[in-house]
């Protein structure tokens, strides 16, 4: 019992070490982080202005509602991008710096290592997402009188588990292809969002895409968060989005760990853990 407690303590310290390392990195690259955030805001604006553009072109829409729908889509896109990016960097950045062998030969278990990356990516992603939402909402003077932010936060928290699980699967790609692995991660992110109704209802998609949407956690995250912010839906009202997210999360995390484990074995068999860069 005491041995198990000591092991768990060591693992949690290791998990904290992963978070600590990422905090140092953000601190050291703080101006790059600011520049990247400015780019994200600009990118979000290019999407969100579409609502005003439709009105200006003579379309009859509820501009505030459409703006909020687009804003939520863009914020989730940016959030998912950060999670995938940080998890993929588990391998890619360490490989470039040459620290990958030191991290992978440490006694920290891989699930805890990846959990540390997941915890940091979620915390960092949430901070960025909230800032992004607040800044753009303020620019468009979105009142959001009915918004239930607590309920939206619950949906985002549950969805994050699935996102981290899928991120673990994309994190393994640079182990298999040091040159193109990261780009494959971006492709996965794009596919996930395109079938999930990021800026449009899922109903407009072709049948085969709608089938894919049912297994994408982003579908339920977008639906649930929009329902909570636009209509003030409470946790009970978005339960129909939460339970599929719990189910997908329960599958995605073990699957992500197993995919990463196999990728690590492949890399160790073929000598691909070495520095590249």
């Amino acid at each position: 019992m005491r041995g198990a407690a000591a092991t768990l303590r060591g693992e949690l310290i290791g998990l904290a070490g992963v978070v600590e390392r990422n905090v140092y990195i953000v601190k050291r690259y703080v101006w790059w982080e600011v520049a990247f955030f400015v780019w994200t805001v600009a990118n979000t604006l290019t999407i969100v202005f579409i609502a005003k553009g439709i009105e200006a072109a003579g379309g009859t829409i509820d501009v505030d509602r459409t703006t909020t729908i687009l804003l939520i889509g863009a914020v989730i896109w940016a959030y998912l991008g950060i999670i995938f990016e940080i998890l993929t960097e588990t391998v890619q950045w360490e490989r470039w710096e040459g620290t990958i062998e030191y991290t992978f030969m440490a006694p920290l278990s891989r699930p805890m290592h990846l959990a540390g990356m997941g915890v940091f990516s979620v915390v960092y992603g949430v901070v960025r997402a909230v800032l992004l939402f607040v800044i753009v909402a303020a620019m468009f003077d979105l009142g959001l009188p009915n918004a239930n932010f607590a309920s939206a936060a619950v949906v985002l928290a549950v969805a994050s588990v699935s996102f981290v699980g899928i991120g673990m699967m994309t994190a393994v790609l640079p182990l298999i292809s040091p040159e193109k692995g990261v780009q494959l991660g971006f492709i996965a992110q794009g596919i996930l969002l395109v079938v999930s109704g990021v800026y449009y209802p899922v109903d407009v998609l072709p049948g085969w895409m709608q089938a894919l949407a049912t297994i994408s956690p982003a579908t339920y995250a977008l639906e649930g968060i929009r329902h909570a912010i636009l209509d003030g839906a409470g946790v009970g009202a978005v339960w129909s989005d939460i339970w599929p997210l719990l189910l997908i999360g329960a599958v995605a995390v073990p699957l992500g760990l197993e995919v990463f484990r196999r990728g690590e074995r492949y890399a160790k068999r073929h000598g691909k853990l070495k520095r590249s860069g």
Partner: protein
Amino acid sequence: MTAVEVTDLRKEFIRREGRLRRRRVPALRGVTLTIERGECVAVLGANGSGKSTLVRLLATLLLHDGGTATVFGHDVFAEPRAVRRLVNRVSVEASFFKKMSSTENLSYAARFYGLTPKETSGRIPEILERVGFPVDRRGESMEALSRGMQQKVALARALLTSPVLLLLDEPTTGLDPRSKLEVQKFIREVRRAHDATILLCTHDLDEAEALADRIGILADGQLIALGTAQELKDRCGVETLEKAFFAATGRALAEDAEDED
């Protein structure tokens, strides 16, 4: 007590030849080696001889294709986490997050071995001081430090976790003579003070002779000789280790090929 026991260890890599053809290239061909606790064994070999592959296998960074390897009784391939608690490594590349400081790099790395901030807050400055790292440069990013300084931090990182087996993969390659001597002095001190077992892979004959109890010669993935420096010289009937290496391998150590493992 036996610290490292390697028996008939084999490792192959697949090399692509053109688009479709692949060829299996042996990196280690049945290496057998035993290192006793507290002993320092140097493995000499040209680039591409399999030294780094041997170190990576013992560090659990590669999977083998045959044979066995144990570290203090733990099977390297079946119980990698138990082995990782006992081992640390210093390689030819210092390998750090370059924008981070030495203290930051050491702090997070220590957490991976279960050391708390309370434990490392006093220990990191103490170890950095012991390796001769200037106190006033602890906050500087690693990229601002010389190769010699970076290598001292790499030694500090390895020692911070109190490894009982230290794998040194060409730790002084590329260092200026003064830094080289400082690192070698520190390796001796570590061995004396920590009772650490050391596997030193190098192509520096003087370094091997100065630091190691026994010296092995690795050529084309095979350990073709193992003994004290004097035994190797006597066996080949020559006066220097350089000549013994030449006699054993048929070529001088300087005739390096590019490292392929």
